[in-house]
């Protein structure tokens, strides 16, 4: 388990949480990554429930402490029931639907060896998702897996280590942390 890690990078002097201070080393790239993240998760082709399942799968696979501590909230409500969120870790043996499991299989393939995507998975993805949905899902994964940067430097520090926190997106795809969730 990745718990209570020391940040692995000497940080520039300044204000802000460690991840923000580290971004000061390469501010223009950090800005581009932020704009890419927003563009990639902008509301569109993919339904929020599938997107949240994919986000949680990325968080679990990469053991990102901050991402695991977040739950997407829209209009004051979690987009995914916590009971479904808890199924993501062992989704193949869960009662999640076929479409949801296929999305998670594609997510796993992307994060491991995408060159080994089987004909069966390709068929499933093409059967259950439109081309636009596939593109949206892959862009979602690109955005969520920016967590790999945080995890590399142990900068994945949750906003509230004792509780789940809301993750809120505006209409442009930019995010902010909401309130602690009960």
């Amino acid at each position, binding site marked *: 388990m990745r718990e209570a890690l020391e940040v692995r*990078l000497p*940080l*520039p002097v300044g204000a802000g949480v460690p991840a923000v201070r580290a971004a000061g*080393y390469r501010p223009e790239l950090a800005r581009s990554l932020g704009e890419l993240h927003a563009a990639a998760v902008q509301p569109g082709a993919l339904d929020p429930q599938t997107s949240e399942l994919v986000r949680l799968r990325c968080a679990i696979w990469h053991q990102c402490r901050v991402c695991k501590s977040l739950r997407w909230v829209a209009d004051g409500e979690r987009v995914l029931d916590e009971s479904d969120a808890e199924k993501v870790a062992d989704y193949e043996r869960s009662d999640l639907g076929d479409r949801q499991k296929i999305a998670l299989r594609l997510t796993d393939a992307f994060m491991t060896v995408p060159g*080994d995507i089987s004909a069966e998975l390709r068929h499933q993805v093409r059967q259950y998702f439109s081309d636009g949905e596939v593109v*949206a899902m892959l862009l979602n994964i690109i955005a969520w897996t920016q967590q790999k940067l945080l995890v590399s430097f142990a900068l994945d520090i949750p906003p509230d280590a004792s509780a789940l926190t809301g993750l809120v997106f505006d209409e442009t795809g930019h995010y902010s942390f909401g309130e602690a969730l009960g």
Partner: protein
Amino acid sequence: MAITEPSADSFEAAFPPACFGLIQEHAPAAYACLRQTYEQALCAADPHLLGLARQRIRLMIDPAAAPLVHSDTDRNGAKLANVADWSTAEVYTPVERACLAFAEQFAFSVADLDDALIAALLAELPAGDVYGLVNGIYVIDALERLSATLNRLFNQEGVL
């Protein structure tokens, strides 16, 4: 050198139209951001190190991928050709070894990445350059994964 092989030092080689055309069609704003971010990544770290990392990641995540070549084969050809054996091949400098060790673990399992891999980079590069390199490796990792996934899903009907 076969001129049809993808080049390690070509900007456009990171965005093969057969794969990224679908992104451009369905998400033009995100596609523009991908290109902008890649451009920034190449400015944020040593392009030579990023080229080595890209080759290693490419061969790890897509066993059928064509290896990259380099336009300057005298300087970099042997390094690109031997990248899968970086730990034993004699052609690599300490900073190249540290970069390849990190890139390999980053692509395989970032959750299991340990302090030593970052420390090895910090022993060779200033902290800001390590941050830039790791960010650059993320961008390359993401683009290579996107390319391989799109290729498998949309360009290989009937291949398997």
